[in-house]
């Protein structure tokens, strides 16, 4: 933040004046995205089965106010926390693996979390949220580590093949989870856990999500080191950045965030891939610059999916995971085709 003011105070030679002005883009983008998000967020507070209008709140109308505070506000909070953290986790993962199609949702990480949830449910029963989270985090780390291990050994350098391998891997893991769940008659409850859905957000489960902003803050503090690591090991070592340690930290952050979000509200397919891709396409890969925008855009993306899911078949709800999966899937395919065209 301080860099803009420092630049002005620096004894700037005249010719690079234009260069300086362009840097303002950064703040304008964040401000615009934030404004859009605030408007959408306020709007979402007053969409739902029971009618709550802003006037009701002033009137201290009993029922309306209760719905507002016990359901709408937690739901909005969960959306904002999950959306921003998942998008940032995707951004970090894509930078560190140096492949813009690698995200927790395309590396099998999400599916490993699902397997972890099944195992935790078998071990601790279906009520222990903390047990689920602990085991989900462990499985998430294992899954990401396995994928990165594979990635280092893949001779295929085709940028498009890598995520497909991840998705295949995820398919295998998710089949294993489904088999286990089927054997122990947990299929329905596991499906309900896995698909991103904010309608169940009232209490007891979503509070875990308060852990993820911390991960986002750490990611922001490390943004420059992540950018440097994303340049490759040679550049990182040259600039004195401990490459392996930084990459490990980033991948741990991405895995832990993914586990917590999936346990907290379920998975939102492609969110961690689509949002960072769109943001970096527009603004480049300098993480310190794009990370805040990515967080805001991720939150906005989920919010829009949620509002769409709530209004499209009103008074019924389509889970946000389904809406996000459709929208995200389409964008993902467009991005893939675009990458293909660029290579060709």
């Amino acid at each position, binding site marked *: 933040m*301080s*860099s803009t003011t*420092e*630049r002005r*105070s*620096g*004894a*700037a*030679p005249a*010719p*690079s004046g234009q*260069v300086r002005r*362009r840097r303002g883009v950064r703040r304008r983008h964040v401000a615009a995205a934030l404004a859009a998000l605030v408007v959408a967020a306020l709007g979402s507070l007053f969409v739902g089965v029971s009618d709550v209008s802003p006037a009701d709140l002033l009137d201290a109308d009993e029922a309306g106010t209760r719905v507002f505070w016990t359901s709408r506000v937690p739901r909005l909070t969960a959306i904002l926390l999950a959306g921003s953290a998942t998008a940032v986790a995707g951004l970090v993962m894509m*930078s560190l693996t*140096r*492949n*813009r199609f690698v995200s927790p949702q395309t590396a099998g990480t999400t599916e490993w979390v699902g397997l972890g949830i099944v195992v935790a449910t078998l071990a601790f029963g279906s009520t222990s949220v903390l047990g689920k989270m602990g085991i989900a985090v462990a499985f998430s780390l294992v899954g990401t580590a396995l994928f990165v291990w594979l990635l280092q050994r893949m001779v295929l350098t085709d940028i498009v093949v890598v995520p497909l391998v991840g998705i295949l891997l995820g398919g295998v893991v998710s089949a294993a989870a489904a088999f286990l769940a089927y054997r122990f008659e947990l299929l329905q409850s596991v499906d309900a856990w896995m698909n991103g859905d904010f309608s169940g957000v009232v209490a007891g489960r979503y509070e875990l999500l308060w852990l993820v902003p911390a991960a986002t803050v750490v990611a922001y503090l490390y*943004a*420059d080191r992540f*950018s*440097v690591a*994303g*340049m*490759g*090991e*040679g*550049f990182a*070592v*040259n*600039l*004195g*950045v*401990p490459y392996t340690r930084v990459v490990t930290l980033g991948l741990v952050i991405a895995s832990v965030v993914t586990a917590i979000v999936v346990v907290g509200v379920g998975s939102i397919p492609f969110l961690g891939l689509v949002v960072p891709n769109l943001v*970096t396409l527009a603004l*480049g*890969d*300098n993480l*310190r610059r794009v990370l805040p925008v990515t967080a805001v855009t991720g939150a906005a993306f989920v919010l829009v999916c949620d509002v769409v899911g709530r209004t499209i078949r009103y008074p019924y709800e389509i889970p946000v995971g389904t809406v996000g999966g459709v929208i995200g899937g389409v964008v993902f395919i467009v991005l893939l085709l675009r990458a293909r065209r660029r290579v060709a």
Partner: protein
Amino acid sequence: MIEFRSVSKSFGDTRVVDDVSLTIPTGGITSLVGANGAGKSTLLSIAARLLPADRGRVLVDGLDVATTPGPVLARRLAVLRQENAMSVRLTVRELVAFGRFPHSGGRLTAEDHRLVDEAMAWFELDPLADRHLDQLSGGQRQRAYVAMVMCQGTDHVLLDEPLNNLDMRHAVQMMRMLRGMADELGRTVVLVVHDVNVASCYSDRIVALREGQLVAEGPTADLMTPELLRGVFDVEVEVHELAGRRIGVPWS
């Protein structure tokens, strides 16, 4: 000053650097020459702690590169490798500014910005400042990388084939810039060059490698002889004096 003390490195059964002991004095340009596969890049990578040596040590101003903390060394020695596949979409200015990372950790001071401006101007990058790296030609990108390394402001600069992808004008310009870094800024510049005449025209000292072994080293004029070049490159070479420079002309 960079000291190599009995440095060896093997890949599998092949010894790529074979017991090299060598001192590169402070200041000036030193060129590593040798045939393809002679081990030039490997030796440079070991000095830049991008590769661990199997045996021996490399000291930069007395600091062992294998044990000195990364950030400390990054303020004394900068390196650019031969191949630099970078998929990150940074603007040229952002890339060059990352050269200041070892000093300011990303929070650039006014002084940092001045140094970035200076490096950009040296390599005529101002018109490209806001372009993303993937929108540049290979030669423009090479200039951006070297500008970043220069911006790092280290006493020692190691460059592996810095003329990669450069056209004649920019190659000459690059070598002049590097001369300037050595003469005006007092940096110790170590280059890998495959063209012995580039080494002859622009460097103060030459280090010749063959199959991982040090064949000869010393002031440029002493090394530009037909006998030595034959020994290093395995071709018959005539050496002619042209405008005060020694130029090797291979027989064909």
